[in-house]
């Protein structure tokens, strides 16, 4: 029977057989001994000792920052990149009116409304477009925007720009707004584009103009009828009067009346023309979009923040985790040697 002791002896003998010195033993030994410094000491401490779990606190910090910041704040509110479309009914304040200029652009007025008949369902929507673009080159972008606005048949009303901020006020035709928005968005990319659209039905203004026009036309008609009546009365009186003095007096009276009524008619016609002009201006106003674009400079840090989901600090820690882990992983073998005791 084979005993363990015998096997052990056999393998010990085999092990001794395998032991041998290298062919270049003396040369190798000499080389190794030559590399030994004179003050070699086993008790000498090395100053740097690498922490093999350095990646762990980074990973923990990344997770903590992510959880805390993401839950505490409404981080990166998506409204930044979404369109905000506001619509309002008939505040009756047009942008060209004095009231608009004094109180500024009316926002959505859900509570204060001029009483408009429900039967009138016409819409005269005045659209306002506001956008904020973020860019690394504000001045260059402003120049390009001006070219685009003019290219769309629009008009630049005012513009200014510096290194960090810029602003353009403009008007463009309403029917080209959609194409214009796409063009602007393509300039900087969706993530750096924030737009706000508001529209307002100016039916109240339109109704007032129509009312004034109707009234003016009615007045004009009345004046013209009155004039015809004066002429008719004058002709009757002339045919009935025998006395020459009466006829002279009648003619004088008639002339005065006719002059007065003609002046009134002329004035009324001028008013009517003015109202028609107002109506045309109103329609022109509704057919255009008033816009403003703000340009803001963006730093590389902010750009990274926009592109990365979640808090950027968490990503910094996450990156540090990966780098430290990879560093540990690729140098672990030699580290294990140093740490063996």
């Amino acid at each position, binding site marked *: 029977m*084979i005993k*363990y002791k015998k*096997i*052990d002896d*056999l*393998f*010990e*003998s*085999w*092990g001794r*057989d*395998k*032991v*041998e*010195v*290298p*062919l*270049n*033993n003396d040369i*190798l*030994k000499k*080389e*190794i*001994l030559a*590399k*030994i410094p004179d003050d*070699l*000491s*086993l*008790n*000498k*401490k*090395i100053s740097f000792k690498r922490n093999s779990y350095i990646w762990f606190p980074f990973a923990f910090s990344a997770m903590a920052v992510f959880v805390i910041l993401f839950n505490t704040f409404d981080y990166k509110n998506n409204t930044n990149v979404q369109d905000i479309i506001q619509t309002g009914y008939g505040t009756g304040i047009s942008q060209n009116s004095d009231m608009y200029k004094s109180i500024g652009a009316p926002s959505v007025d859900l509570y204060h409304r001029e009483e408009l008949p429900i039967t009138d369902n016409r819409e005269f929507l005045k659209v306002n477009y506001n956008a904020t673009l973020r860019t690394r080159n504000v001045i260059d972008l402003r120049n390009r925007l001006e070219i685009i606005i003019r290219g769309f048949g629009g008009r630049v009303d005012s513009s200014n720009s510096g290194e960090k901020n810029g602003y353009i006020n403009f008007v463009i035709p309403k029917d080209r707004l959609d194409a214009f928005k796409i063009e602007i968005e393509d300039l900087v990319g969706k993530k750096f584009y924030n737009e706000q659209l508001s529209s307002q039905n100016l039916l109240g203004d339109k109704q007032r103009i129509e009312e004034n026009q109707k009234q003016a036309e009615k007045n004009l008609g009345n004046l013209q009828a009155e004039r015809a009546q004066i002429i008719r009365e004058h002709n009757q009186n002339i045919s009935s009067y025998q006395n020459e003095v009466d006829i002279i007096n009648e003619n004088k009276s008639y002339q005065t009346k006719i002059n007065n009524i003609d002046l009134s008619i002329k004035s009324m016609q001028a008013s009517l023309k003015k109202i028609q002009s107002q109506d045309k201006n109103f329609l022109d106003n509704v057919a255009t979009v008033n816009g403003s674009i703000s340009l803001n400079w963006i730093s590389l840090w902010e750009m990274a923040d926009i592109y990365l989901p979640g808090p950027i600090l968490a990503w910094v820690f996450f990156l540090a985790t990966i780098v430290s882990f990879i560093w540990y992983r690729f140098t672990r*073998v*030699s580290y*294990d*040697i*140093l*740490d*063996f*005791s």
Partner: protein
Amino acid sequence: MFLNKDDIAVLWDTITPKLYGYLVHVLHDKNLAEDVLQTTWLKAIEALPNFKERAGASFSSWLFAIARNECKQHWRKVGREVSFDPTIHDKEIFNSKTEDLIFVDQIMKHLSSKDRELVRLRYIADLPLNEIAKILKVSPITIRVRMHRTLAFIKIILKNQQ
């Protein structure tokens, strides 16, 4: 504890034959074994200030641990561990002097790589089991059990051969 060049020379003479024998058996190539041997010693000297004699671990086992890692790094560079191939490796590695020892070489081929490593460290490196446990980063009990199982397996092979 201070070491001078003479101490290292003594350590070289004591450990190198076992270490070289171990490396030749692991790498199947004497030239490569010489290279790894040299690198192992250089790394050991470089890291010597960090070596602490603790829990009975000897300089010898520490050196073998470095040598094992050097072999791993070599295999990582070449992509895989190369098994013995008589067409490319040194044939005399398995040319033992007596019939019994030739028989052991044959038995070694039947063992798993883990068991082969255990046998090498135990019999070529002549290391005690608790130091082998440190090198292989397992508990001494595990090493004892594995050693026992390996010998039992060898016993079965021997029985079948008879």
